[in-house]
């Protein structure tokens, strides 16, 4: 399989009457860490939902390894593609271990509800996200950073090659944000294809191998961060005057907003 593992073809995306995007096409490169960026309301989360088939496109189609995702059985898709929604709700009084075990659902049957492979996958997922010692704790009593890692563990327990993350760092303080991003980078290095929606441009530029910049439902630019994150593009997409300098830690492009007086002058 050499084509893109996940691909959107001519999508029209809408909520009720509100059309968010029309004729939107995008390809997710295999084994990439793709990050979708753009201002609020540009349709980046909507696109991610369509890619993860939690939103039905009004027109167009999403292809998973070249097959139309809508025609595949729901469980078959869930064995190949996992998705972490923006603010999932844990049931009252569920333990970490039980929550993560629910990620095994696509691998189970009505009667065969548990297997050694399930136990192994859950243990691996707990280890990978470093929450193994929280296993018997209640999800409700965890900190935001711990909870996000637990949700990631549930998605990992699905054992998919593709992992979609909708703003995984929102609501976290800065240390926990980088903890989650480092974890994502490691998951990517292990060979998975990751697609994430992120708000923070500098985080996106630092961690992504492939960036997709969106504005008003249209893909404005895509490619490696060094090609995409430029002063003209940030101004065009976000309406922000800025300088782009190399990140002193990683050398990736870093956006530094212009001073207030410069800011006013540069706006169109």
């Amino acid at each position: 399989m050499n084509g893109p593992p996940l691909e959107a073809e001519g999508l029209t995306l809408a909520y009720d009457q509100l059309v968010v995007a029309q004729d939107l096409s995008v390809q997710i490169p295999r084994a990439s860490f793709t990050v979708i960026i753009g201002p609020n309301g540009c349709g980046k989360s909507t696109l991610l939902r369509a890619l993860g088939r939690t939103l039905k496109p009004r027109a167009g189609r999403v292809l998973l390894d070249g097959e139309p995702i809508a025609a595949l059985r729901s469980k078959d898709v869930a064995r190949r593609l996992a998705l972490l929604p923006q603010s999932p709700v844990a049931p009252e009084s569920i333990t970490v271990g039980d929550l993560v075990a629910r990620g095994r659902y696509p691998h189970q049957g009505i009667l065969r509800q548990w297997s050694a492979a399930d136990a192994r996958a859950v243990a691996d997922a707990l280890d990978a996200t470093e929450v193994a010692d929280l296993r018997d704790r209640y999800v409700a009593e965890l900190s935001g950073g711990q909870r996000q890692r637990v949700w990631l563990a549930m998605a990992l327990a699905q054992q998919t090659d593709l992992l979609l993350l909708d703003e995984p760092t929102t609501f976290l303080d800065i240390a926990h944000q980088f903890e989650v991003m480092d974890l994502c980078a490691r998951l990517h290095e292990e060979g998975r294809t990751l697609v994430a929606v992120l708000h923070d441009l500098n985080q996106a530029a630092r961690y992504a191998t492939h960036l997709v910049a969106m504005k008003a439902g249209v893909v404005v630019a895509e490619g490696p961060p060094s090609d995409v994150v430029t002063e003209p593009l940030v101004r065009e997409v976000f309406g922000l005057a800025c300088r782009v300098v190399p990140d002193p830690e990683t050398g990736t492009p870093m956006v530094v907003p212009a001073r207030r007086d410069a800011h006013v002058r540069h706006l169109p």
Partner: protein
Amino acid sequence: MTAVLTLGPAVAVRWRRRPVVVCIVALTIVLVTMLVTLSAGRLGIPLSELPGVIAGTGSRAQEWVLWTNRLPRLLVAAAAGAAFAVSGAMFQSVTRNPLGSPDVIGLGAGAAAGAAAAALVWPGLVPVPVGALAGAGLAIGAVYLGSGAGFRAPLRMVVVGIAVGAMSMAFVQLALARATREDAQVVAAYLNGSLAARAWSDVVLIVVALVVLLPVALALTRPMQLVEMGDEVAVAVGVPADRVRTWAVVVGVLLTAAAVTVSGPIAFVALTAPQIARRLTRSTGPGMVAAACCGAAVLVVADLVAQYAVPGIVYPVGVVTAALGGVYLAFLLVREWRRSPA
């Protein structure tokens, strides 16, 4: 405390000890209450004579009391309690709200209106159970349309359901007002929820309904657990949320219609029993078997209370469950009120 029960390579079911204990205790309560009910009152069969009556060596009066008068009633109570409770568990799960049970969202009242229509308004047109099913179907259809977003808007379902229930009860009153006095009295007793004079045909109907529908409910339990976590999480792990909801509603409607047919719209069993089961088992999802056991226990105990709590007066069992359930409903409403910002 989780263990895995395996049966060859094809079956491996995870289970916890607590729900099993809860079910055993609930079923013990059912059995003991049945024995107490059989032996209570002027016509009661003393426990020492019960084996003899079952074996056919009792007096004719005792045989009549056991086989015609009390046993069908007890079996209907247990089975209808279980059916109400499972239906309640399904609807509470679909609406993600302990208030979203079929008796609160107008399903029981809809079934009663259908039964009243079949019995009084157009007698002989359709059998009463069919009328009850049609009424429940119409009620849930009205809730579906009225909520504006189908079964995806839990709170609106509850609000619209209360209105549908009120309209259904108005129709029932209308049917009663038009009926002759004798007919009306029979139907009025039934509409309070009554277990008096149950026949073996009632037992067969409700037991068949349970035998057919309980396995479907069991198969839906795990997907419903995931749908409770939100449609996005459910779809992400491969649960077709909309389809699961539709199935749950269909099973819930059928169970409510069957239970209402044999016992009338007994109030609040569907509301309380699944929640009792959930609290006792400390489970994080709908547990159908535990709900069924608790529902059977609640209704059998309520029926005993209705018959013997006040000497000389026999209340319809629905009056007892309404009184108990009303207190619980008030508690739920107050809690909901406190939770939502004023």
